[in-house]
Every structure is written in C-alpha cells, then in structure tokens.
C-alpha cells in the first residue's frame, strides 16, 4: 500500500492503480463517462478532473496512476467548477431530449410517451398504472384538462398533436369500467397521521399519494361531498358526477377518511395541528381565514418555502389555490403529488427539499429535416377524430397512441450525462450555440437504436467493438469538433454491431446507443 493525501487527509491505496479507482475505493465519488475497465484507456470526457495539490494543475483522474506522496484535491469549488464546465460543454453539443417535451410541459410530470407506448400495444392496465404514478384522477382530468402537454407535443410541428388527454381519459375510464379497479401498492404503514384540509383536486391528489406512501390520512372538507371545485364549478355534462365519485372511491379504498361538512376555523386548525404529525392546507384561497390561523400570507396566498410547500420549519404545508389562485386542475393535482413527497421527507426524518426535478436536456423546435427521423418510430396517419363526449374506442386508442413519436430518451434510466449534469447543476444553455446538429435516428438494428446527435465522442463503443473483433464495428470518422462515430464504409448498424450490440448499448454513457426494448 502507498500513501496519498486526498483533500487534506492521508489515505492508503493499492499501488499501480489509477487515481480515479483509488478515490472510488475510498468512498470518494468521482464522475466519469469515458472510463471503462477492460478496454483500452482513452482520455476524453474530462469530467473526472482533480487538482494536483502541489502544482495546482488539473488532470483527469482516470489517466494518472497513484504515486506515493501524491496530493490530490478531489472536491472543492474549483474542482466542481471544472467538472461542471466539462459537462456544460458536452451538453452544448448533446442534441436530444431526456424527457419528452410533453412530459416536461405536464404540471403533474406524467410519463406520457410510456403511457402512449403501452396504449398502442393494447396494454391498457399497464398504461393506467403509469398514469396513476402522477395523476390520481385520470378519468376526471381526461375530461377537463386544458392539456398543456399537447401544446408541447412535437407532433404539432408535423400535423396535429397526439390526443394525449383523451388517451389518458381512456386509460382512466377503462379502469373504472372494470371489475377490479387498480389500487396502487401501499408502502408499509408509517404509523403517522396527516390531516388534509380541503377535498378539491389538490387535497384529493395529496391524500392519494400520502396514502400510497403509508400515511394515515384524514381529509376535512366544508362541503357535503368531496371534490371541491371539480364538483362545484365544472359542468356535469363535461364531468359526470359518477366519474368523480368513482375516482374518489378509489381514494377511499386506499384507506383515506373523509370528514365532510366541517368548517375548519382557527381553533379547529390548532387542534388538527396538535393531533396530527402534519397538516396540509388545500382549502383554496382564503387569506383572511389563514391570517386568523396565525399563518403568514402574501398577496397571492400562503407563504411557503420554495418547492417544498412547507410553511417555515413547521409541520404545516399548503398547496393549490391556498398558495396562488389557479384554475388549472392539473397543476393542483401535481402539487398534491409533490407535497406528499415533502411531507414524507419530513415525517421520515429527512431534510425537506421537495420532489427533485432532474436535469433535462432539451433542444427546442424540430427542424423540417427531422420530421422524417421522428416519423420513423411513428405512423404518418392524421389525428384520430373523436367527439369529446364519447371518448376513444379501443381501436381508436391504439391508432392514436401509435402517432406518438417517442421524443423521450431510452437512455434515461442510466444516463451518466444526465445524472452528473443534475449533480453538478450544469446548464445546457451556458455555452449554447446558435447552430445545432440535426437529430437522426438509426433504427434498423434489431436490438439497439443509434442517435448520433447525442454522442459525446467518448469512444467506448469504438473500443468495445475493436476489442471484440467486430468485422466492421464502429469508428471515429473525421476529427475535431466534427468528428462522428459511425460504421466504416457507411455500412449499416446491423453489420457494424453483429456481436456486441447490447454490450455497447449498456456501456454507452448517454443515450446515443440504447437498447430498443
């Protein structure tokens, strides 16, 4: 063993290993994308930079061997900045979406492309499960949502957006029509109680997700029936009461107790605050009342801190119109889901940070040349027409869902670029350029899809195909900024990846080459 000094602490490491491995073996996280054991070494991504404590110079920790007496700074502001800038440079030429624009536009952040794929395959139950991860009342919302997602749908630039809202409604209706309605898996009971004041969209959503997280949840509502504005302000012809009741019944079935006809005043509020582990205010915009409860308000509503929906450092939270008047039910629903996350953080003794929003790579509008690329995984058919009252039939759903162009990235689950960008707070725009590469999708391979515009030129695939003696494999073509990775002689990806397609897809640190699934 040899001794090195890392961040002012002496540690013993095995001789003959790389600095990055020595650090990682000692529990120090070092990001890296181009480094992979078992293939030739290649210094490319530069996100593993560390600083030499003696000279102040930066070097990639994957490319130096440990030496006795080395002094390494692996983590300080400057090192973080160096990695952040490397990531920002990579992001500036990384053309692709992480999450699809529709998902980002959705205030509840629903995984729309996944729902579409399942619907297109006729897997309606699975589709519903995906929907319900983010939207507690899909049949309701499927009738009243203003669908910001469809405004962001890339299909819009080609013809008309996918009818996302109606697809979601179908998933909800299909579930309600069945014998056994879907009940999500409930985490084991936390033995903690949460009071929710108000049974409108925000309160209902919060109650649903708090219950899923294992909390005993009681809803206090001043109306005779739960539903709040959904019941009082929406025309029954648009949203029949039985649909609303059916979806609320699911929430009851999850174990949520509803106390109706109860007007919470200052005294009642203090009581709830005393009896429950946390209290959520989702009772609409009543500033005067909240003032009497001893809570701070600003012009728009209750004052909460940041994205946590928490009032100060209390156990009181607030969402929906209580914060800021909104007529957008989906936003209230989304907040209900998010606050459940914050409350869970508080009641499990963690720091309350709110639900994290991961970094998203985005590139803006599609260029006309890209329409064809996106249609490769879709159908050219026009939007399926439907009258809003009836909703889609099974056949229509399958046809319409097939129109989705799957703008989301397949590499999301293990994309290192995204994970590090998030960790280091990198901005894709900081070194953004006016010109960008065009997105291309090579889909002819059975097992993998190749999107060169996402490639960060780390060369792992080039080295893997060479190590496994692929006849053609992949190679760097050109040099400098314009270098590309491709199959030599313009051969097909099928020919290039005969042996190690899946290995390559799994090793690709971003979504340039991914499994088709």
């Amino acid at each position, binding site marked *: 063993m040899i001794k090195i000094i890392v961040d002012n602490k002496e540690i013993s490491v095995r001789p003959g290993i790389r600095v990055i491995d020595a650090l990682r073996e000692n529990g120090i996280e070092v990001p890296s994308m181009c480094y992979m054991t078992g293939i030739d070494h*290649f*210094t*490319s*991504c*530069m*996100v593993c*930079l560390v600083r030499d404590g003696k000279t102040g*110079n*930066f*070097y*990639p920790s994957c*490319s*130096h061997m440990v030496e006795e007496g080395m002094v390494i700074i692996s983590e300080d502001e400057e090192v973080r900045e*160096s990695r952040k*800038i*490397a990531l920002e*440079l*990579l992001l*500036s*030429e990384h053309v692709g979406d992480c999450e699809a624009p529709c998902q980002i536009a959705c205030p509840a952040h629903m995984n729309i492309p996944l729902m579409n794929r399942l619907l297109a395959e006729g897997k309606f139950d699975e589709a519903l499960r995906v929907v319900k991860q983010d939207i507690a009342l899909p049949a309701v919302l499927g009738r009243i949502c203003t669908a910001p997602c469809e405004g962001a749908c890339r299909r819009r630039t080609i013809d008309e957006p996918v009818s996302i809202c109606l697809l979601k409604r179908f998933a909800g209706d299909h579930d309600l029509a069945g014998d056994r309605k879907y009940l999500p898996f409930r985490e084991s009971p936390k033995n903690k109680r949460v009071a929710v004041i108000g049974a409108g969209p925000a309160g209902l959503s919060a109650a649903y997700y708090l219950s899923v997280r294992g909390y005993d949840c009681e809803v206090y509502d001043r109306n005779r029936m739960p539903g709040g504005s959904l019941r009082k302000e929406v025309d029954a012809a648009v949203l029949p009461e039985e649909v609303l009741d059916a979806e609320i019944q699911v929430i009851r079935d999850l174990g949520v107790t509803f106390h109706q006809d109860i007007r919470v005043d200052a005294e009642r509020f203090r009581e709830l605050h005393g009896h429950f582990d946390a209290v959520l205010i989702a009772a609409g915009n009543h500033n005067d009342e909240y003032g009497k409860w001893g809570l701070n308000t600003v012009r728009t509503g209750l004052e909460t801190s940041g994205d946590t929906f928490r009032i100060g450092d209390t156990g009181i939270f607030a969402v929906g119109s209580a914060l800021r008047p909104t007529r957008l039910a989906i936003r209230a629903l989304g907040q209900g889901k998010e606050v459940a996350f914050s409350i869970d953080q508080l009641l499990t003794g963690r720091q309350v940070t709110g639900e994290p929003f991961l970094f998203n790579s985005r590139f803006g509008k599609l260029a006309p040349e890209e329409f064809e690329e996106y249609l490769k995984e879709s159908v050219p058919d026009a939007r399926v027409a439907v009258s809003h009252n009836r909703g889609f039939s099974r056949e229509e759903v399958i046809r319409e869902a097939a129109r989705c162009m799957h703008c989301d990235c397949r590499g999301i689950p293990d994309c290192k670029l995204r994970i590090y960008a998030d960790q280091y707070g990198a901005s894709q725009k*900081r*070194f953004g*350029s*006016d010109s960008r590469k065009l997105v291309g999708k090579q889909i002819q391979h059975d097992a993998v899809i190749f999107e060169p515009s996402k490639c*960060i*030129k780390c060369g792992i695939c*080039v080295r893997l*195909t*060479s190590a496994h003696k*692929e*006849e*053609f*494999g*992949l*190679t*760097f*073509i*050109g*040099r*400098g*900024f*314009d*270098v590309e990775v491709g199959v*030599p*002689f313009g*051969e097909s990806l099928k020919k290039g990846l005969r042996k190690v397609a899946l290995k390559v897809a799994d090793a690709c640190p971003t979504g340039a080459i991914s499994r088709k699934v």
Partner: protein
Amino acid sequence: MSTDLSYIDAIVESLGKEQRYVIPILQSIQKRYNYLPEDALRRVCELTEITPAQIVGVASFYAQFRFKPAGKHLIKVCVGTACHVKGSEQVFDALKRALNLKGNADTTDSGSYTVEKVNCLGCCTLAPVVQIDSITYGHVTTGQVGNLIRDFEEQKDTTGKKRFRNAEGEEIEGEIRIGLGSCCVASGSEEIRKAVLDSIERNNLNVKLKHVGCVGMCHQVPLVEIVPLNREPFLYSKVQAADVEQIISKHFQPKGFLRKTGFRLLNLLDTFLDDSRWEGIQRYALDTREKHVSSFLGKQKPIATEFRGQINPVDMEEYRERGGFTALQKYILNGDPSRIIDELKRSGIRGRGGAGFPTGKKWELVAARKSDRKYVICNGDEGDPGAFMDRMLLESYPYRIIEGIIIAGYATGADEGFFYIRAEYPLAVSRVQTAIDRCYEEGYLGENILGTGFRFNLSIYQGAGAFVCGEETALIASIEGNRGFPRIRPPFPADKGLWGKPTLVNNTETFAQIAYILRHQSDSFNSIGTSGSKGTKVFALAGKVARGGLIEVPMGITIREVVMEIGGGIANGRAFKAVQIGGPSGGCVPSWLADTPIDYESLSEVGAMMGSGGLVVLDDTDCMVDIAKYFLSFTQNESCGKCTFCRIGTKRMLEILEKITEGNGQESDLETLEVLAEWTRKGSLCGLGKTAPNPVLSTLKYFREEYMAHINGTCPTGKCKDLIKYYITEDCIGCTLCAQSCPADAIAFKPLERHVIDTERCIKCDSCRQVCPENAVITR
C-alpha cells in the same frame, strides 16, 4: 465503380501487412488514384491486418487524404498568418468565384481544378501566395486571379523542353550560387537555374553552378550570388530569368563597369525593399556589406543555419569541409556517451519545439532507461501557419540534422531513428532521403558506424497533415499507424514512447544545433543568450516588416531589435502595432512591450510563447480581434477532437469571436469567452488545447478596447467584412480601374467621373481598393 486493384496488392506486398503501415499504404493509394477509392480501402483490409474501423478512422483523421477525386490541377491558397494579414481569404473567395465554385464545392465540374486552403507554403515574404501544381504565384491580388489561371494554362505544358548540362571545367572562373530554398524556388529560382545553365553553356564558361539552401533573405528572392574567383562576391536579389544573361556577362567580363552598376543600383534599394509588388521589379545587386543587408544579417548568429547560403544542401563533402561529422567522430570514438550529455547540459540548450525542456536532461532520461530497444525521433511536423523553420532547416542542412540525430542515438543508447516530416514538404523529404542514403554509403549510418560497432538506422516517416502530430505523443501514435490522438503524460516518451519503448523526441532545430555545440564546446553556446535561455533561436519573420525572412538570433534579443533592425521596421510607413509570436500557441505582444527580450520566460510572462518560431509583425491596419479569430480558427480546425475542453471549448470560443466580428457580440460574450479560455487552458489534455486560448487571452489583455469597439458596431481597422462598407472618396480620378475589377458589378463604369460603390451589391472582395492608384477606395 470498380478500380483496378492489382496496384493495391503490389503496394501491400512492398510496404507490409501490419497495422503500422496503414498511413504509408494510404499515401501510396492516394498518390496513385488521386484520392482514396473505397474499394481500394476494402481491398487493403482483405489483404492486411488493418481493419475497416482502423483504415476509415485513420484516413478521415488526416487532412492529406481525400475521399473524392480531386481535380486535375490543385490550386493551393496559402492561408498562413502572413498571407492572412495580406488578404488571402479574399483571394480564396475570388478564386472560387473565378472557378464558379459555390458553397462547399472545391472541385470544378469539369474536374480541371480543385482549390483548397493550406496552412503555410513557407513563402511568407511573397504573401499572399497561391500555388497551382508546382508553379507558385506571389503577391496575388483578388483582381489578378483570372490572369493567374490563364497564365497557368499557358505555362503548364512548357516545362521540361530544354535539357541542361552542367559546366564542369578544370579551371573554374568562379561560382554562381542560386538559392533553392522554398522561397527562392517559389519566386522562380528554377527558371533562373535553367537560364544560368543555358548561359553557361552558350557562352562556354567555366563557371560552376551551385545550389545553396535558404540564405534567410527571403524578402529578396530569387537570389543569385556571383562569386568570381579571388574577388568579392556579389549578391543579386529579385532576379528574373531574363536578367541572367546580362548579370553573368557583367561578371565574367572586364571589371570596372560592374562596380559602377552595383553602386547605382544600391541607391535605389530603399524604394524597393518592401517587396510590395512583384510586377515590374528589376534585379538589384546587393553587396552583403551594405548597410541594410548587413543589418539584416548583422545581429543574427547562425548556428542551426551556420554557413547559410554557402553550402549545397546535399553535398556531403562541403558539409565535411566545414567541420561536418567531426563532432560525431570525436564523441563516438571517445566511447563515452555520458560526456555528450554533460556537454549539452553545460551548454544550457533547451528544446526548440516551444516548451523549452532542457535537452541534456531529456537525453539523460532516455539514456538512463534500460530497454532492449530505444528510438530517436526528429519532430519535423511543423504545421504552424506562418512558420517554416523546420522545412528550411531540413531542406538546407540535412546532414547537420542527421549528425545531431546519430549523436543522440549514441548518447541515449538508441539504435533506430525516424524523421517525421510532413508529406506537404516534398523537397525536404527528398533532400533528407538523399542525405540519409549518402550517410549509409559513407558509414555514418548502418550496422558499424565509423568502425566502432555502434549501430544506428534512420528512415523517414511522412506525416499526413495533422497539426496535433507536432505533439510528441500524437506523433508517436501516428507512426504506430493510428489516429493522431495525443495521450496524457506521464508516462513520457522517455519512459514509454514508440511501441512502448523509451523514445527521445526532439525538434528539428534542436538537432540542428547539437553538432555545433559539441564541435565548438558548450561555452560557445552558453555564452550566447540570457541566464535561462541559451544560444540562438530561428524565427520566420513575416508580416508587415520591410524585410521578412528566416532569421537566427541570439536569445535575449528584444522584439524591437528584431522588428526594427533586422526587419527594417514596418513597411509602407505604417505604425508598429504588435507582434504575434509563437503561432497559434503564442500570443500577441503589443508594440509598447517591444523591449521584451526574446527568451522562454520573458515571452510567457507577457502572454506569448516561444512556440516553434513564427514571428508575425502587425501594423495599425491589422485588427486584433480578427487575428485572434484567425489563430483560434486554426487550432479549432486542428483539434483532434479527443478531449472535451479542446474539441468543444475551442469551437464555442470561435463562435463567440465570429459573433463579435460580425457585429452581433455583447459585452457578456467577453466574460463567457474568458471563462472558456481559462478552462480550455486548464482542462485540455495536450499542449494544443492548453495553448489554444493564448491568442485570445493576449489580445483580450492588451487590446480589449478593440473587442469593445466591435461589440459597439465598428471595426477600428476596417478589416472585419461585416462591419465595414467600401466607399470611394473625392480623390477618385475616374480611371475606371475599380469598375473594371469589380466582380459584382457594384461600381458603374464612369470614365473621368468620381465612381460610386453600390453597397448593396458589393461583396467586399477588396479588388477595387487594391487596384485604385489614388488610394481613393476606403472602408469605413
């Protein structure tokens, strides 16, 4: 399409089937087919160990290789620094217009011409330069490109008609020396050589014609030196073939007449020394002791360029007569390699490639390694725009460099050496090859050198056009048959170099100084220069000086002395603004810091760098933002693309500079530029990326107000096309030259009236300004 592939089988057979031969194989294929046909490459993969991934990866990395057939004639537009500041971009555009090439097209539909930019043709003093096949045109203006192509069409078939016989007599009346350096050749010395031979033959003279390498007076080329026996030599500059007969007859006839002529012509010198035009220049005799010329040579100290202009590059006897190979002989017979290293360490010599690592120490490191094989590499992969020192040294002093390499082999325990020379330097390649062959014949190379049992083999490896291969690890990757990707050091090549063996890599100029140091003892070298930088440095002096050329100066000389005394000050009476030292890795030193001594430390203190030795002088008409953009676009284009900071950082910096020079910049762009510059410097893998921001950082430091001016919408020097308009002043005499030269019909033809430019139509090609005899065309 099918290609006759039997040739492929033959070259594979002769070159070899291992992966390391991929570049020589590709070079042979391209030589044969004029490009790389895909079926030829596939055939290579069938026949050899080379894989499709390797051959495509390598072929697409190096600029030399083409995947589409090139035209019958290749037009190379030099865009080196000196040419750039004299308007080569506009010449390139004009050529494309003349050949009707739109967009990215580089080859005419008929397949007659391919036009391309090259980084440096090494004729900086003739800037801007265009080369069509083997004919070089200097001082090209945008208006002349039509004539240029016409002239080439007339000239192309006229070569090789006459045969010349060399005149060798028992009694030699004298010697005629003709410069055969690239500048001289480019300016027409080959024509003169023929005219001299013709004249010698016709007049039956017993005069010896001698070819000499570069004299370093490139601003005066072509040079002819007449050396009558037992009399003073006379040097003629800017000689034209038609003058040869007259010159020769003067010298080899009764004297008296001669001196008079020489005198009269000398008085005219000042007028013509600025070599601003090539047409209408007569020949002028220069006496080397005359004031201007002696100052051109006076402060210089030739070591790498010792005996410049006096020896025939490939004549081994002449090299030996002047002490050649005595250093090798002395130290090799002495039998103690460590004494060589001690002597070098005492001399204080540091690597001339730019970084300045102590040479003796480097040799010592390699010598100390125990290994079955060791290698020596001479790095002649000069690629800086505006630098041609290596080329000149290789062309003019091949034996001197070879001697240095053999000594290095002996001192370090290596038994094999490689010259890495750019394939774009064919003359250097052939001269060095001739010299290597002679050395084998004479026993300086081979199995048993000078009977001592020391074995050393030396061969040439031709680089395929990648600036990054000047970086030693990239150079090694290239010799091994890979893309020229540099790698992190350590391990240094001294530990793990070529094929994993200890390898000594030195710059050409470094090797050129070794024999001198050992022959004259270290003190002779040590006594020149400053405390940290010993000896001399060769520079390519170009740009806006009155006299440009190759110079070798003692370390510690100030920038001012070089510009004002050696370079004769700024041409055309303009004001001295800055010097750009060190090429794309270097920086701009403003005129107010001109008293900075030229040594490694002082230059880096002011934000420049010794680099490999480009020294471009800028005057008050040069735009510093444009200069920064120029150098950055060079490095950006030459980035290998391996590491993030260089690949993307240089690109983003360039985009910002383009935005600024197009008038779309904002003040916040400067901050982003600085952040990018700082981190590209700190974070890049190799020297190319680490130094690429220097031109930007140094201009931002000294000329920030020029950046601000662009951001506010004006280019103070009127260089940036998007920020200027052409305009004709009242000085116009109505000569119509501008209207005639305008390719865009933006100037109406109005004899004897003041002309007017239609700025909507104007394409800013600069033709009108160049032809105007009254300087009435201005930009604003």
